[in-house]
């Protein structure tokens, strides 16, 4: 689960609450339907007046107002959710001021991290808490995807293409770095560790 303060966590709760509301609404309506309108076997079945008959296109059934209602309300929800995504999206795509650059290279099946001073480490990345990082990502062979669950970010590593992602560690600890794009036999083993060194800036 991505930590606090990530773009993921700025949007996720909004979506979650809307989802729960819609899900509960549908579930309750569905259950009420099953409870209220069930005609059990054995009892003489009530035949609705407009029950369809074979070979006849049935009576019209519908309510324009209701149908418009459940066209407009989902549209508004969609508009709101898109709006709610804009600010975090800006954060995802924006570049922080003076980020520390890390060159990340994916190869079958290891991540290589080259720091600004030119040293390279394999399957391990050391970062400092509170510093903004920009990882420039590429691959030497097939497509990989740099995935840091702690920050809820992921970007593909494609040979010949430079992609990037940014993150700012906010707490110390050791976190996994994974490969999220299937890259062959040892895809599952293409893991690395991220160590965040303190101290974290207060506030």
């Amino acid at each position, binding site marked *: 689960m991505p930590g606090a303060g990530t*773009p*993921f966590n700025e*949007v*996720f709760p909004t*979506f979650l609450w809307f*989802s729960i509301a819609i899900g509960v609404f*549908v579930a309750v309506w*569905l259950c009420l339907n099953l409870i209220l*309108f069930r*005609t059990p076997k054995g009892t003489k079945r009530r035949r*609705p*007046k407009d*029950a*369809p008959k*074979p*070979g*006849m*296109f*049935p009576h019209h*059934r*519908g*309510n324009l107002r209701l*149908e418009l209602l*459940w*066209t407009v309300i*989902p549209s508004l929800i*969609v508009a709101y959710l*898109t709006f709610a995504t804009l600010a975090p*999206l800006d*954060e*995802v*795509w924006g570049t922080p001021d003076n980020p520390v650059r890390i060159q990340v*290279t994916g*190869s*079958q099946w*290891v991540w290589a991290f080259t720091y600004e001073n030119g040293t390279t480490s394999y*399957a391990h990345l050391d970062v400092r808490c509170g510093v903004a990082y920009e990882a420039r990502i590429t691959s*030497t*062979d*097939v*497509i990989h995807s740099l*995935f840091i669950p702690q920050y*809820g*970010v*992921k970007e*593909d590593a*494609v*040979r*010949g*293409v430079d*992609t990037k992602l940014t993150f700012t560690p906010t707490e110390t600890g050791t976190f*996994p770095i994974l*490969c999220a794009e*299937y890259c062959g*036999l*040892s*895809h*599952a083993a*293409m*893991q690395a560790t991220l160590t965040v060194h303190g101290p974290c800036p207060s506030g």
Partner: protein
Amino acid sequence: MAVCLLLVLGAVAPASLSLSGGISSPTLPAEGCTCHGGGKPGAVTPHLDGVPSQYEPSKVYQLNISIEGGPPIGGVNAGGFNLAATGGAFLSLNETTQVFPSGEIGHTTAGNNQRAWVVQWTAPAETDKVVDFRLLTNAVDGSASPDAPDQWNRATAQSMGPDASAPTTSTELIDGPTAFVLLAMAMLAIVVYALIPKGWSKEDFYQTIWAYLTTTDHKRVGMLYIATGFAFFFLGGIMALLIRVQLAFPENDFLSPSQYNQAFTMHGTTMIFLAAMPIIFGFANFVVPLQIGARDLAFPRINALGYWLLPAGASIIYLGLFTGGTGDVGWTGYPPYSESPTSQSPGTQLWVMGQVLLGISSTLTGVNFIATIMTLRAPGVTLLRVPLFTWSILITVFLLLLAIPVLTIALVMLLLDRLIGTAFFDPSKGGDPVLWQHLFWYFGHPEVYIVIIPAFGVVSEVTATMARRPIFGYRSMVYALVGLGALSYIVWGHHMFTSGANPLFRFLVMFTTMLVAVPTGIKIFNWLATLTGGALVLNTALLFSVGFIATFTMGGISGMFLASIPIDLHFHDTYFVVAHFHYVLFGGTIFAFLSAVYYWYPKITGHFLNERIGLVHFLGTFVGFNVTFYPMHELGLLGMPRRTAFYVAGRGLEFDNLLATVGAFILAVSSALLAVNIVYSRRNRVQAKDDAWESGWSLEWVTSSPPPEHSFLKIPTLLVQSEVEPLPEEQGSPEANPAIGSGLTAAALPKRSRRRTKGSP
């Protein structure tokens, strides 16, 4: 287990430097070390000398390891090895070798610039052991160029104790996965045997087989499709179980990574192309001509050809099993992996070829259905009086016609890349791997709608019939279907939010993807409104449709999360996605088509399926489904990537994975109940009337159950109920209710529809 962790740390090397830390890993393939990209097997010869054919207990032996051939030793890091034995102990003699915690021995950084090593091996104290040695070597040119391939190979040797009996291969012959598959096949054979009616002579048997082999009748072709689809559903299900057994526990080794990769590739391909689509085409074949009052499809022979290409394509895809491994590139087959030397599973070639054939099959079927629905409708069946299932098939085949050729083209490009060295997708030669993603998902997203839209059609039929009322908002249902079909072509980019595409493109795709919620919402609310005020017959068919509404809503909601880019950046390619698409494809398509099985079974066979078994079947499927896939949402939240052959302990993934495996077995057992039900119902027939559910309106309920050979004795005319027996409130003018579309209550049959139906046979 610790070895796995070691691998994670040990697999530390840029391409084309032999692993300076040594090679040690349980996930190394049995064939040898492919530790470096661009590896090439067989070009070097490893030698393992000094292994005694018969060892003396506890004696110390010196073993010589060397590599012959390979590139000249130019730079550094020229070679490496890993030696494992099933008994005894290794000892490192100098600083060039090291013993790993797993007991294997390999080179060290100091021993990384050579191609010969000497190690010591102490034979086991037991006198009756058989010790197998496995040596993996690789040779590298040391140029550190990413394109420089390393060359690797393996060697084996065996040493037996004085009292050891000759090794028996019986334990090797059947491993866990094979036993599992064989057991499942045996069960399938029992079901097929049970389906053969009692008292059948050989002649009856051959006659029936011949009739099906040579048929062009839409009903028989439909049944062939449905039977094939469910057979592959069963096969794909077995692969799902293999996957779930492997993932039940962290760092499990039930399947090797190679087997696992093949399993999920074949699971995906099978379920989409060989199970879902054939089941859909099967019902479309059987039901659509009946619903529009036609005697057959427009081109019955092309229809039969389309069907027979399916088993042909499927066989080609599965031939990989006999050529050393099926395709292992995932159902999405992303290049450059799918054309890289590290994925030279021979089955991948067959996987590509087979899919091209399936594409031809689908395209033919698509043309056929468009022609049929547009030209063969019976009198009275105007386009806005076509039953919703047929509408959904019409939308589907349009999607099919526009989408499948794109996949076929992409597959042919991939084939050329693999076979004759073009470089459409190979970045090392200037190709663009992201192009494949665009092409694949331009096909792939409509494809998932191709399998879900017919499900909408089924649910629309079942909810209305079982509520014994007309569908709520017929027209808005049709418009929503059309809207979904149109939207499906402008959302493909949401599969590529992490591919580094243009931000504006990504933003637009995010917005169009969210828009999908609107027509989907209309459909869900219309179904709910259809049930409201109905006289619900709560049978298995309706239960599966109700289950569909519940699970599909869940899947739709999780789709909204994935549409939002900041959320998708975390969820992309994790188990949350797996949960999402199983909620819409299993909870959607499969639930709907299980509903379709119960709904149209009396029409197809003339008798009902048993309701008691059906109830258990539904409950087991519903519970099993949710127990399997609900925990995957949390796995995604925890950041477990999909398509991984194992996961490490300690990240909180254990419980959810175990739960999902338990659910998968509940699902498997309850799915088997469908077969039980079919056999049981055949032996205890409850005859069905023509109008089996007593409230269906479309023309399939007019003809007999099962329909006669030419489907209709006389081509029927679809009447309009509000004209024949108007409701009290309709007896005034149609304008009394503004919601009533004028077309729905038109006084006479439009002339146009009569003209249209001239072509009916």
